């Protein structure tokens, strides 16, 4: 965007207190111009913008597939799509949403933008590798999209063998895509870890790190340790398909359960890759809008690390009915319950942070409160699935679909939207329409519950997932779900529209519109390319709201 495009009234607007630079002053957006300056940028903030655009496109493609699924399921018969068409639609929905949206989105967008600024660094430790991560993401996504467009994949996002090694759809292309996107994750995680270790500003001790950084750090550990496993596993599927090597297919002497073990060894921790950054966002928003230091800082920080570690030892709870030994199941069940505890600790600490605060309800806070309600349901229904006897009943039914979406959409996506709204003024330098923001949060909350709550009931009734046609007595619940999904669609489209509009036409935000304490708010909006005009020095913790004065900045500059 060009400063000359900014409408005249804004250029002459008085600068808010504490604002060191209006939009016309040099910042990362107007520092250089032209497509090349974006595609070859090494600025972590510009790379974050590249990711915003590409992950949003991925989200829209995944949402389109979801719309097809929900439309098909209004009636028990298969009338809109063929059996194969439906299978390809839910596979596209799963693969695109998981690998191209949920896994990368928060680390790549908000993590990229915020990790260096929050710790007072000029950029990530390896800016070129950071750019390479984006290109890997794009190359991997191209393979995946090619698989989806050129005939489709019909394995679901889980690629279970021996189905995936025998189906005649584009599994190899999708597998290569997932493999390459995996490297994008690994490099991003590696970059974050080195940055957090080596590039903190003077005085930014480990226990002065914002909780978003702690969660990004924990997420990065999982990315580095887990992603190689999925990469090689999915590559084995491709190799088995092309060379008939007997790894997973019993026809060639392989073991189909081996795939499930390897797949979930990554993919369960991957669920924490998706949700942990969301926890980090909520831990930033709640203190800001209740003007309170977070309750139990070190417990919230350490619970992220605990989740990252224990998360590697719970994968077997996906295999209770797969033919895994009973005693293995017992161990995985116990560990799956235990991982619920650090999660519960976070929820209790967020709630306690509100106590005797000064709470206001701007859009990010509405998303955060919505997150707490929905994630609570998502987390508690996880206990049902960790209970072996109940899993024997609800495994692979709509109960699981509902649980998963409560965590991933009600939890993760709401947290992401909350984060995008919270940091949008910093990213774009502009404010969005607050009324539309609140409206969007409300519509999303209502639509979400209407879509997914009925699925718990129909799941316990026995509705299996991945069903193109179903028995007529389940129809009521599917009609409710589809109605909810339509509302949810509006709730998601609204922010895309008004945020895009605000990019050019929004009010000037000023450096710290929400009067937040984090280091990222101590620089101008949008920040200059080098993030800070002067190197910040940190002498207090990240959430010292009690010492925040309206007209002054907390941190010495």
């Amino acid at each position, binding site marked *: 965007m060009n400063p000359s495009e900014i409408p005249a009234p804004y250029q002459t607007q008085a600068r808010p207190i504490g604002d060191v630079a209006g939009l016309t002053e040099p910042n990362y957006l107007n520092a250089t111009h032209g497509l090349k300056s974006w595609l070859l940028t090494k600025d972590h903030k510009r790379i974050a913008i590249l990711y915003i655009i590409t992950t949003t496109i991925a989200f829209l493609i995944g949402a389109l597939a979801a719309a097809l699924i929900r439309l098909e399921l209004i009636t028990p018969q298969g009338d809109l799509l063929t059996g194969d068409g439906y299978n390809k639609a839910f596979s596209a929905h799963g693969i695109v949403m998981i690998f191209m949206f949920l896994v990368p989105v928060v680390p790549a967008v908000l993590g990229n933008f915020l990790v260096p600024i929050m710790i007072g660094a000029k950029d990530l430790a390896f800016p070129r590798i950071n750019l390479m991560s984006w290109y890997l993401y794009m190359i991997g996504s191209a393979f995946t999209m090619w698989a989806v467009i050129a005939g489709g994949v019909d394995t679901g996002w889980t690629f279970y063998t021996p189905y995936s090694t025998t189906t005649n759809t584009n599994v190899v292309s999708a597998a290569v895509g997932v493999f390459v996107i995996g490297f994008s994750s690994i490099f991003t995680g590696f970059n974050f870890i080195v940055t957090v270790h080596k590039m903190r500003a003077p005085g930014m001790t480990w226990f002065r790190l914002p909780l978003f950084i702690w969660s990004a750090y924990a997420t990065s550990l999982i990315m580095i340790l887990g992603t190689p496993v999925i990469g090689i596993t999915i590559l084995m599927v491709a190799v088995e398909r092309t060379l008939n090597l007997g790894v997973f297919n019993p026809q060639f002497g392989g073991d189909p359960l081996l795939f499930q073990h390897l797949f979930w060894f990554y993919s369960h921790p991957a669920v924490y890759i998706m949700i942990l950054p969301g926890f980090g966002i909520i831990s930033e928003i709640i203190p800001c809008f209740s003007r309170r230091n977070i309750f139990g800082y070190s417990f919230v920080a350490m619970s992220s690390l605990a989740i990252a570690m224990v998360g590697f030892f719970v994968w077997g709870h996906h295999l209770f009915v797969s033919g895994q030994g*009973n005693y293995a199941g017992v161990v995985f069940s116990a560990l799956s319950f235990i991982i619920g505890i650090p999660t519960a600790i976070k929820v209790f600490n967020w709630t306690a942070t509100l106590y005797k605060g000064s709470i206001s309800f701007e859009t990010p806070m509405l998303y955060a409160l919505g997150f707490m309600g929905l994630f609570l349901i998502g987390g508690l229904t996880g*206990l049902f699935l960790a209970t072996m*006897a109940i899993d024997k009943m609800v495994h692979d*039914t709509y109960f699981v679909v509902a649980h998963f979406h409560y965590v991933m959409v009600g939890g993760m996506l709401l947290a992401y939207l909350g984060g995008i709204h919270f940091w949008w003024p910093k990213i774009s330098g502009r404010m969005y329409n607050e009324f539309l923001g609140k409206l969007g949060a409300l519509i999303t909350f209502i639509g979400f519950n209407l879509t997914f709550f009925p699925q718990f009931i129909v799941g316990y009734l026995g509705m299996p997932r991945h069903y193109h046609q179903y028995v007529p007595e389940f129809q009521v619940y599917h009609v409710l779900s589809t109605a909810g999904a339509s509302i949810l669609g509006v709730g998601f489209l609204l922010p895309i529209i008004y945020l895009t509009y605000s990019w050019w036409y929004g009010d000037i935000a000023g450096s710290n519109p929400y009067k937040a304490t984090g280091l990222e708010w101590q620089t101008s909006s949008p920040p200059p390319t080098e993030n800070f005009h002067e190197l910040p020095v940190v002498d207090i913790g990240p959430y010292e709201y009690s010492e925040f004065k309206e007209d002054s900045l907390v941190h010495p500059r």
Partner: protein
Amino acid sequence: MNPKVPNNFALWPEQASTIAGAVDALYIFEILVSTFFVITIPAVIIYFCVKYRRRPGNMNPPRIETSKALEVIWSVIPLMIVMVMFFWGAQVFFRQQAVPENALEILVTGKKWMWKFQHKNGHREINDLHVPVGQPVVLKMASEDVIHDVYIPAFRTKQDVLPGRYTYLWFEATKTGVYHLFCNQYCGTQHSNMVGKVIVMEEADYQKWLGGYTGATPEQVGEELFTKYACNTCHLDSGSARGPLLAGIMGTKVAFQDGSQAVVDENYLRESILQSQAKIVAGFQPIMPSFQGLLTAEEVNALIAYIKSMPGSKAGTSQAHPPAGAPDAAASATDAAHQATNEQTESNDAATTNTAQTTATTTSDAAATTGAQQGVQ
């Protein structure tokens, strides 16, 4: 006669098995616990949001200090609650998994995209499964292609059906009627049409229904296949004895060339037929061809039924699950030697001596490689 599953709107699935009540009780317990938290935590949040909303005079609240006591309380209490769920859930799960001794065995073959059932007397049916009420039934299941899953919501149970080996699902129906049977593991184009019915009948009606069939039993079919595929030339004592003798082999321990050992169960027999090179019994040459692709899953079932029925077999129908873990190598090898000695009385001397010698050799081998021994597959 084409009974249909009743089609009514419902909030709660019908209970039709002995385990259903136990699963529902646990489910209701967890719903109550969850409801408690889903009401109280948001209630507290809303209360705080109203009481401490931003107002003049409430602009700059003081610092709050963390209470370690609170942190401990809200870690320990949830931990205790989930441990109740864990133990309760594990206990019911073991009831779901433990096949009763007297269970009636029905063979199940999953195949894209149909269910084939075969009853004890050989009676077959497709997608419909007739079972007697008040009688434990165990489904011995295998897949011909990809992974499927038998799911009967009214019985509160399901189990994946694997192409590589047998899995087992048991239930005891408590009331007559017709219930859904779904394939619950995604298996391709017609996955959602891989749906069957469980028709629960009175014992007398079931016997009458079974009696309508007068064809061959699985054992008879198996015996024919045993000759047709020339298994008898190596595996019967009247043959060349180039392979292990199979009479009475179920439930015995065998030692392998690599020093490991296993208890013979249906999965071992199945693997030995289809992946004949996977485990070589000590003292024999790996000369058996693989029958993968030559035999259908049902033919494998028939062969195993025949092997189990061979004279000298003491295996019952419910020899379903292998015992957990293997005892130490030397003891097992000794058992195998005893077994061989028992067989001696019925076998010709030369062959048995051969077996006994090889077992003795294996004992020392096994002792040398105790660390390498594997659990029962």
